């Protein structure tokens, strides 16, 4: 495990203070935590199956038996929404981890090696970022087909470059410092220098990026499902649920409303958490832009 320097440890102590000090940050972490608990406990909490019709009437308004009503196939909307959280959280976690690992590795190496590698990588980053996210994703989906792993790969391809750019900028500030120079002078290898000296000191930037990208990944994956290129029916994916019930919007708004509320609370939670982290760690959140 990597160890934190003295300054680093003090900063992390301050983080704990800010997390409990700012109301909106606390709300953010509570929202994300609640989503985690609900997703983990979905099999216990969900009153019905998320996939099968349980003999209930289709488009039944919310009642004591079906708290969030039923959809056009008579499935319990609450159960579907609860199980949908498991999908949303696993997909988001996997994709975000991929994005952060690839982005951090590429960004660190570009900052460490500089020279032609840095030039080439940054031009490629510019090129990837210049194609609108959804379009880039759709190109990959068209060629490679859908499915969870293709989706993870596609999301990593479109978001890792932005992370690489931010991480590179942060690493460039750390690498000229004396302790990194000392480690290089000792003859340590690039991996050792980066993981032991550089990474612990840009961990704040990486952490804020993680929270921020996670919120975008949720939006991106649900949009893709909504367009019909993500999860396949009868999956209780939130984006897919909104798409399936679109034609019933006027008669059965509840069937769309539950997944919409779930999506919005998760992303608001992630955004507030990212804001709070950025503020307490002193990282400029806007640095990465919005592309």
């Amino acid at each position, binding site marked *: 495990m990597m160890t934190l320097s003295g300054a680093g440890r003090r900063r992390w102590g301050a983080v704990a203070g800010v997390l409990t000090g700012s109301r909106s940050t606390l709300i953010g972490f509570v929202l994300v935590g609640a989503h985690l608990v609900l997703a983990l406990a979905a099999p216990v909490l969900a009153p019905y199956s998320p996939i099968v019709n349980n003999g209930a009437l289709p488009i039944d308004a919310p009642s004591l038996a079906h708290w969030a009503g039923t959809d056009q196939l008579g499935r319990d909307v609450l159960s579907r929404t609860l199980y949908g959280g498991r999908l949303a959280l696993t997909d988001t976690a996997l994709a975000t981890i991929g994005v952060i690992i690839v982005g951090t590795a590429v960004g660190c190496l570009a900052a460490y090696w500089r020279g032609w590698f840095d030039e080439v990588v940054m031009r490629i980053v510019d*090129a990837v970022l210049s194609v609108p996210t959804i379009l880039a994703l759709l190109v990959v989906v068209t060629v490679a087909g859908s499915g969870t792993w293709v989706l993870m790969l596609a999301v990593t391809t479109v978001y890792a470059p932005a992370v690489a750019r931010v991480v590179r900028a942060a690493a460039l500030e750390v690498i000229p410092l004396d302790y990194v120079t000392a480690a290089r002078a000792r003859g340590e290898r690039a991996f050792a220098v980066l993981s032991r000296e550089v990474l612990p000191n840009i961990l704040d930037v990486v952490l804020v990026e993680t929270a921020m990208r996670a919120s975008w990944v949720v939006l991106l994956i649900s949009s893709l499902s909504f367009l019909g290129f993500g999860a396949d029916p009868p999956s209780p994916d939130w984006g897919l649920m909104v798409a399936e019930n679109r034609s019933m919007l006027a008669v059965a708004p509840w069937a769309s409303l539950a997944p919409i509320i779930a999506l919005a609370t998760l992303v608001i939670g992630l955004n507030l958490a990212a804001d709070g982290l950025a503020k307490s760690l002193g990282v400029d959140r806007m640095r990465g832009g919005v592309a």
Partner: protein
Amino acid sequence: MIRYVLRRLALAVLTVWLASLGIFLAVHALPGDVATQILGRDATPQAVAAMRTELGLNEPLWQRYGDWLSGALHGDFGTSLVTHQPVADELTLRLRNTLLIAALAIVLGIVLALVCGVVAGLTRDRWPDMLISTLSLAGMSMPEFVIATLLALAFAVAIPIFPAVVTAGPDATVAELLPALWLPACALSVVMAAYIIRMLRTSVIDTMASEFVATARLRGLAPARVVLRHALPSALLPTVNVVAMNIAWLLGGVVVVESVFNYPGLGVLTVDAVHNRDLPVLQAIALLGAATYALLNLAADVVAMLLNPRLRRRAVA
């Protein structure tokens, strides 16, 4: 200054060229045969062979890339695999329709963002700021299809002022499309404004706390004059890039929002192209997106330079 602009322009051209290479390679060099992908797994070998000839897949990769790129530079993006019409014709028609919503969304979004961002910044931590900040966070946190769906629920179902679904085809006249423009444009402008508001709010707060604004106040100038003539120009500066990024984002946003309303623009064309595996159309749209993004970034850099005398001087030196 001209040298700076020229360098930026060269960089933009390089970016678009790399993007074109990436798009082409993504479509043609990824594992799996494109012809089989298009026709499905149970296509006859003859059909696959015919499709390979139609796509020109039997020629070497670099020659195909060269042909595609030189065609694209002359405005020829090949033929659609579905309609067998030139891609460029369809693209021009759809582009006009999308530009209609995009223009409306940009105007609405920037006006909304300017008013809300400045009000929020000036009333920091009091109720107007709390309200605007909460709403913009919600706007940022909801996918475009959710905002579009909620707008449709409110203004097409509950209060039927606008159509929920567009029935006009791609070649409809502007007058026919006019009533259908508002909901998609509003949905886009809400998301766009949400980001700009957050940026502008911080920027206004920083500027209002600066010494030159304090001086202007102490000179006894009217508050409105202090804000509009002194604070706003420098508060807008950091926002220029965010605005440009958001306009570029619109290109992706239209894909989702147009689908919600079935608006006959580039977005719906994209989704159809993906469904039908119409690769020439998809390639053309992706390249168009990359070129627009690069141009917008270039424009943002130039505008930022014109607004900031310090940057202007440094660029000359």
